[in-house]
């Protein structure tokens, strides 16, 4: 640990453009230095950003400001425009209309490497013919940095992601998680102000995915730069994001903190996509209600009647799927103990109970 901090420090002090990467909880001093912070912590802003492929609109005039130093997740189903948005920020896709601003400066037409962003690709895109260290040092080589110097820097980055021991291996000889860390180190060595991650965890198995997302979050906190992470997994977004931006059909449906989005979904789409919610139409309007706020009771007692269509044991909870009046689906997430104290089986007619305060009215 001691060694790691030392290397982290040298990494901070040797930025090629002279700026300092803050590691907030380790170097409290840099945080109080307002002027420096302004230099580093630039906010990223999308202004009426659009992308069209011929007649097809992939991104439709989205406007959003990402707070500096935050972990943001672009969440949405495939084809919603989240990847196009990310690639426009990165500069790998031309901007049809609108602008991408970083720290107030328009970067929409700069080449990728001049933007202050770095991208981590979905399949990592490691150069198969280069060793781990050479992969990490690639951008320095492109800048013409001497071999000894760039290898030393690459070594520091590899230490940051805990891969020093494998620096001579070829990417083929690494596991998926290790390849991802190499990709991370390669992206971070350019000292980006914004790191763009395109579905970084989708190639990993579920167990590794959970471990790596912890690692991503840790790195983001330590580096204090903005991470923009594209994903279609709501659990990933909830676990990682300071801010979730839900996209659908080329527009932003809702943006907010993970808790805001989860507890107060604005639209039926968000409520359904973020998971754990029921969307029901009641005489008063359309509402979202969290599945774990619905209780299952005996018939004729609840707020509404239904018939159980499925029971799924999920460990801590039991998911009870019901069909209620108006042919609507409603599922209840019942704590395991409560369910088995009064078990039901498919076909049973039951009552469903909720607190009116848990009903959340949807605007669309």
């Amino acid at each position, binding site marked *: 640990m001691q060694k790691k901090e030392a290397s982290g420090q040298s990494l901070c002090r040797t930025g090629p453009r002279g700026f300092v990467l803050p590691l907030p909880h380790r170097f409290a001093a840099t945080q109080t230095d307002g002027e420096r912070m302004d230099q580093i912590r630039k906010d990223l802003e999308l202004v009426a950003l659009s992308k069209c492929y011929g007649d097809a609109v992939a991104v439709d005039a989205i406007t959003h400001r990402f707070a500096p130093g935050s972990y943001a997740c672009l969440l949405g189903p495939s084809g919603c425009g989240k990847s196009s948005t990310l690639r426009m920020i*990165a*500069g*790998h896709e031309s901007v049809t209309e609108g602008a991408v601003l970083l720290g107030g400066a328009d970067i929409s037409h700069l*080449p*990728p*490497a*001049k933007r202050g962003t*770095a*991208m981590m*690709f*979905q*399949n990592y*895109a*490691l*150069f*198969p*013919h280069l060793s781990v260290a050479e992969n990490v040092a*690639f*951008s320095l*080589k*492109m*800048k013409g940095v001497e071999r000894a110097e760039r290898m030393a820097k690459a070594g520091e980055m590899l230490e940051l992601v805990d891969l020093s021991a494998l620096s001579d291996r070829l990417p083929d000889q690494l596991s998926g998680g290790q390849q991802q860390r190499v990709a991370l180190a*390669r*992206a971070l060595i*350019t000292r980006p102000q914004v790191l763009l991650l395109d579905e970084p965890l989708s190639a990993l198995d579920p167990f590794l995915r959970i471990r790596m997302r912890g690692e991503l979050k840790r790195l983001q906190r330590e580096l204090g730069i903005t991470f923009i992470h594209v994903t279609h997994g709501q659990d990933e977004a909830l676990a990682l994001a300071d801010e979730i931006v839900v996209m659908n059909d080329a527009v932003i449906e809702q943006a907010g903190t993970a808790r805001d989005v989860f507890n107060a979904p604005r639209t039926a789409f968000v409520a359904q996509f973020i998971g754990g919610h029921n969307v029901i139409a009641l005489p008063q309007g359309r509402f979202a209600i969290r599945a774990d706020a619905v209780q299952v009771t005996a018939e004729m007692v609840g707020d509404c009647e239904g018939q159980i269509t499925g029971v799924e044991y999920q460990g801590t909870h039991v998911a009870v799927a019901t069909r209620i009046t108006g042919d609507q689906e409603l599922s209840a997430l019942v704590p395991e103990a409560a369910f088995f104290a009064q078990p039901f089986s498919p076909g049973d007619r039951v009552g469903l109970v909720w607190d009116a305060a848990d009903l959340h009215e949807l605007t669309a």
Partner: protein
Amino acid sequence: MHRLLGSRHVLGWLQVAPLALVLVVFLVLPIVMIVTVSFWRATEFSIIPAFVWENYEFLFGSSVTYRVFLNTSKYAVITWALTLVIGFTVAYFLAFHVRTLTWQVALFLVCTIPFWTSNIIRMISWIPFLGRNGIANSTLISWGVIDEPVEWLLFSDFAVILAFVHLYTLFMVVPIFNTMMRIDPSLIEAARDAGASGVQILWNVIIPLTKPGIMIGTIFVVTLVMGDFITVRFMSGSQSANVGRLISNDIALLAYPSAAATAVVLLLTVLIVIGILLRFVDIRKEL
């Protein structure tokens, strides 16, 4: 019988047998034959089975051999360099500049059109073009670039190499194009993300990843040029020689042992060249 077939070893051998048989009959036996004959003794009138080194002694004792081998290598190296540059450029254009697969396939087919005729016809068609009063010379004269016909256009090393390049560039294009098509486009984006310029991407990403294709193309071109005799004969107007012509002359004189000895030396030379090439690049992934 059933038990015999059931045995893993017997079944394995049986599966290998057809290919092994083809290779033995059409590759190993002819080579063994050539090597054997190369030790036979020949007089003006007869060929006598024997085991003598005189064919090789004569071959290595003659300065003509060295000159001809040198000339053959010269053709091979220059042709290789030119086909590599042209072939790489064409493949690069097809793989990275042509956006749609339809166009890639269409243009690729265009490249193969010359192969619809025999290579002798393609070679001979150069003659009216390059000749003393050919199209090239008369055009250059009418443009006023030259005053009198250029002599070295036909029946020269220039003509030989031109024909080689014309005949064999496609053998370079195909494997290189094939390798380039397998390069993940995100690698190029990743390189651009890391600040690489077009030339740097070419040098640091595309060329290293295309090496196996380049190597396969190189093997094609080098072996074809080293083994050729007809192109050299036609295009040099019998003024230059390569090893193939040496062999063909011996055969014309019915000096089979001498031809066989030259062939063995040529075969070994080519194998050594390929052996050296394969030490540099691992092409197994491509096969």
